[in-house]
């Protein structure tokens, strides 16, 4: 008997559909976290979400657009300072201020991008760091925001978020959760869009992509602006959690870039799952080694170097190459199935 074979091209798989179901369940669970765990764990979750958002954005920038930046702290710090400036001077509600700061981030990213895109490769990377330094030194000049020593968010503004301290902390947790869902969702939809397809073509072969009519500069520029805007939003939330800002903390290259790169590389560059795994590994290490003090950073550095040299595709890349698991349906594959009837 001749059974007709049919082929079809598919993005999703049974696993990825199962994962989206589990994701929905996990999100509901994460929404309820403030009710289920203590204060320390909730704070840890909040910080993890913000790092996951930063890592997903950096991964879009470096992994897909090939824009290896070591200056994303420029936008984190900008977001923080915009939150403080717009609430203190313009009297905006903190949430409005953060939303506006995202737009400001996009606007600032334009001239910065035009300037910095003149540099290539490694020099682009350090050029972005120079931009972050310019931001840091400029904000340190603004005496009304505390100059070099920084300032705290006035109590009245903090209270405008919610009257009780518990509700404020819960709100800031939910905001972090909402933002990370927004960021990962935006990155995912962007990669599945027409622009995303162009971006993946660029990643695989710039010459071939440009010969097919993709505008390399424009595609990368759009990614730079989108990540700049979203990173600024994350920065606003980070400093809404911290309630205190200083130029050193706002534009810290280690906190907002080095660790983020470690997360992406440990998790596995080139996959959307990578930053999630990387964030979990990073914070697991941090909690395990918390007693070591600064020595924990030495271990972290060694671990990141080890992963880069011995397993450059990262933890998730390793899993994926072994088991062919794709949690986010971003890749197409040909499937064959039999029709018996």
């Amino acid at each position: 008997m001749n059974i007709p074979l049919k082929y079809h091209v598919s993005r999703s798989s049974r696993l990825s559909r199962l994962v989206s179901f589990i994701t929905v369940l996990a999100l509901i669970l994460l929404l309820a976290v403030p009710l289920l765990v203590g204060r320390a764990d909730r704070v840890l979750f909040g910080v993890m979400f913000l790092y996951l958002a930063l890592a997903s954005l950096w991964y879009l920038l470096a992994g897909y657009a090939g824009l290896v930046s070591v200056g994303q702290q420029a936008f984190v710090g900008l977001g923080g300072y915009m939150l403080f400036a717009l609430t203190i001077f313009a009297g905006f509600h903190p949430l409005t201020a953060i939303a506006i700061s995202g737009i400001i981030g996009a606007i600032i990213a334009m001239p910065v991008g035009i300037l910095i895109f003149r540099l290539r490769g490694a020099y682009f990377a350090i050029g972005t760091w120079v931009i972050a330094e310019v931001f840091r030194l400029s904000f340190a000049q603004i005496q009304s925001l505390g100059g070099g020593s920084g300032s705290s968010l006035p109590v009245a503004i903090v209270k405008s978020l919610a009257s009780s301290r518990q509700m404020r902390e819960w709100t800031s947790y939910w905001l972090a959760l909402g933002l990370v869902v927004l960021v990962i969702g935006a990155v995912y939809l962007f990669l599945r869009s027409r622009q995303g397809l162009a971006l993946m073509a660029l990643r695989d072969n710039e010459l071939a992509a440009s010969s097919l009519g993709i505008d390399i500069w424009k595609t990368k520029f759009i990614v730079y602006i989108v990540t700049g805007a979203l990173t600024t939003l994350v920065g606003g939330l980070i400093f809404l959690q911290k309630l205190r800002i200083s130029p050193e903390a706002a534009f810290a290259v280690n906190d907002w870039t080095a660790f983020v790169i470690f997360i992406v590389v440990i998790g596995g560059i080139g996959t959307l799952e990578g930053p999630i795994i990387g964030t979990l590994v990073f914070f697991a290490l941090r909690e395990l080694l918390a007693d070591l003090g600064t020595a924990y950073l030495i271990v972290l550095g060694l671990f990141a170097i080890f992963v880069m040299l011995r397993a450059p595709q990262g933890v998730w890349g390793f899993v994926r190459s072994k088991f062919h698991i794709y949690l986010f349906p971003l890749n197409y594959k040909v499937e064959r199935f039999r029709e018996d009837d």
Partner: protein
Amino acid sequence: MDWINAIVQGVLLGGLYALFAAGLSLIFGVMRLVNIAHGDLIILGAYLGLTTTSILGIHPLMSLVVVMPLMALLGYCLQRGILNSTLGDDLLPPLLVTFGLSVILQNSLLELYSADPQKLNAGIIETASIEVGSLAIGILPILMFFTAISIVAGLQFIFYRTALGRAFRAVSDNQDVAQLMGLNKRHIFGLAMALSLAVTAVAGIFLGIRTSFDPSVGGGRLIFGFEAVIIGGLGNLWGTLIGGIILGVAQNIGAQINPGWQLLSGHIAFLIILVIKPKGLFPRISG
């Protein structure tokens, strides 16, 4: 008069920035490696100088006899042990690995020496000065400046007049062909990093004599060095010296207008040059 003084001091300060930059320029020229840990290695040089002077009781400049070979050895081992395996078309591995080294160095120095600012005590030459007209020019800045000139001249000599320099240029032009001609590129890269860190040792000692330092200040030194390299043009060592001078002068002019603008005006001068001449003033090789 203040302005002339600011410019003269800026030119001399440029010598120090050229010292920060020369090592970066060298390894970028030979193997296209950008070393994020370069600034922290400068600070390591300063701390090694501190330990050497306090153990042996010698002048910081004399400590170079110990610190330079130590740093060169570290450079060779680092290159052969770790950095060689990161080189390739992909930018990310060397970037991440040197970022990792930077975090490791900063925190190791923090564990060993604490966060307290330290300084190398060079005695009389720190304050001695000579009168030129109505200007008082410090002996130390002059010494720094002429050291920078002799190091750039020395590197230039090694590059264009010696067998080692020929090997550097060969692997820089085409690694595979150089390998076919019997050069061991891994060894050559090791030697280039050794030379780079020997220069870095000099930079670190002068930095330590001139200002106080702590484990966290490496990143800033890396940026100054990088800016000097880009302003001067990739692969051009004399250009790097001029880049350092432009940076130093810009900073001092900024500081003359407003003390808070010193570093900012250096960065802005760099960005302006980037707008006008993205390849730097005197480029030799393409990035």
